[in-house]
């Protein structure tokens, strides 16, 4: 592993992995719809952005997150700028949590994440439904929020593992 770390290219690739993951996830939302899982959808971008804004803010720059949001709007078909706004609010919430936290814990992070995605999805719903007259399904939204929240536990541990073993960041818990 030490040999790997010394190799500049691999080191750069590993430290840029969150950014690659972010752009891959917005360009290709992994919804597993071909498996016919009717009640399964989650927002991987939210998990990734929240985790890295909270734990390792230099991993994902705000400008890249803004651009990823624009890309997501184009892919999903929502008004341009809306996803960027939601992603940046998520970053803001994560940065606020980082500033007020003295003793970090995964459960607290998760609860704060749940509250944030509830607010974000409500804002998204209100904007799309009331201003842009998009029809949205409440049930799908709830399913999405619940799965995103539950999967935060899993992905948070995976990202911790990745940061500790591959990137070697001492700040990651």
């Amino acid at each position: 592993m030490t040999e790997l770390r010394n190799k500049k290219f691999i080191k750069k690739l590993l430290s840029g992995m969150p950014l690659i993951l972010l752009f891959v996830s917005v360009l290709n939302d992994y919804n597993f719809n071909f498996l016919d899982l009717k009640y399964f959808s989650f927002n991987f971008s939210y998990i990734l952005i929240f985790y890295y804004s909270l734990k390792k803010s230099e991993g994902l720059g705000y400008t890249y997150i803004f651009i990823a949001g624009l890309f997501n709007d184009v892919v999903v078909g929502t008004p341009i700028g809306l996803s960027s706004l939601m992603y940046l609010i998520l970053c803001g919430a994560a940065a606020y949590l980082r500033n007020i936290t003295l003793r970090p814990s995964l459960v607290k992070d998760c609860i704060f994440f749940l509250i944030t995605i509830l607010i974000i999805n409500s804002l998204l719903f209100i904007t799309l439904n009331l201003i842009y007259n998009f029809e949205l399904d409440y049930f799908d939204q709830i399913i999405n929020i619940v799965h995103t929240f539950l999967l935060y536990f899993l992905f948070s541990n995976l990202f911790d593992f990745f940061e500790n073993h591959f990137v070697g960041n001492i700040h990651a818990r």
Partner: protein
Amino acid sequence: METSRDDFVIAIRSAFLKKGTQQRFSLLGLIFFSLIFLILGSLNFKAINYVKIAINEIVYRSSFIVSTPEKFIKNNYLVVQNHLDLYEENEKNKSELVKLRSKDLLNKFIVLENKRLKNIIDDYLVKSDTIFAKVLSDKGSPFLKSIIVNKGSKHDINLGMIVMDGEYLVGKVVEVNYLSARVLLLSDLNSKIPVIIEPNEIFSILSGTGKDHGVIQYSKKYDNIQSESVIYSSGAGSLFEAGIPIGRINTNYSDEKRVEFFSDFSQLRFVKIISFIKSESE
């Protein structure tokens, strides 16, 4: 009390105004940018539209490349699934083929007769052009059910053209870029098209649900709609030609008149984009 309010303000200020290392913009600045994009975009501001078109072209192409691994997994999964169902499907197909061959002869006669009669009343629509397009990406997001195709205004694609998978209707073009276009699928919540339900000749509106099926709305003869009835486009509004097959009614799941589409929208790879014009009456 005063101290906790100060802490809150400091934390908020630090979160939204402080620039991190290698950050060019603060969070608040970028939030303003997003809001400007949103507001100007909704006002159809020209510069924003050009930015949007440029992003569209980049994103649609890169999305096609990025989604290759997922498509590979998806295709292999479907190949395995198809192999497992092969024997059962073959038996079913054999029996259906016998029935269809006999029906086909009768249909050919009816189609010719219908064409002749519609020509007499000057209501016969003909396909103007058929453009074949490849599906670049099919995003089943919770917000929109749409696909991106690799043909745009360069290939004479216009807004409102209809999109078919073989002989089945799948949607219509809602956004045209230079080299690509977005097709709103019939399953989208915002899709509403006039249809006719046979037998009984019931005119109604087919609405998308955001899932893989549609529902029948707004019909006085709602209760007369039977399970297994076939849905065709009604031709009202002259956007679609009448009689394009769409799906079949299924009332097994609930009281609502659910429409199972003939075409599987998650499996679209190539589609036909067509517009209809009135034929010159002879």
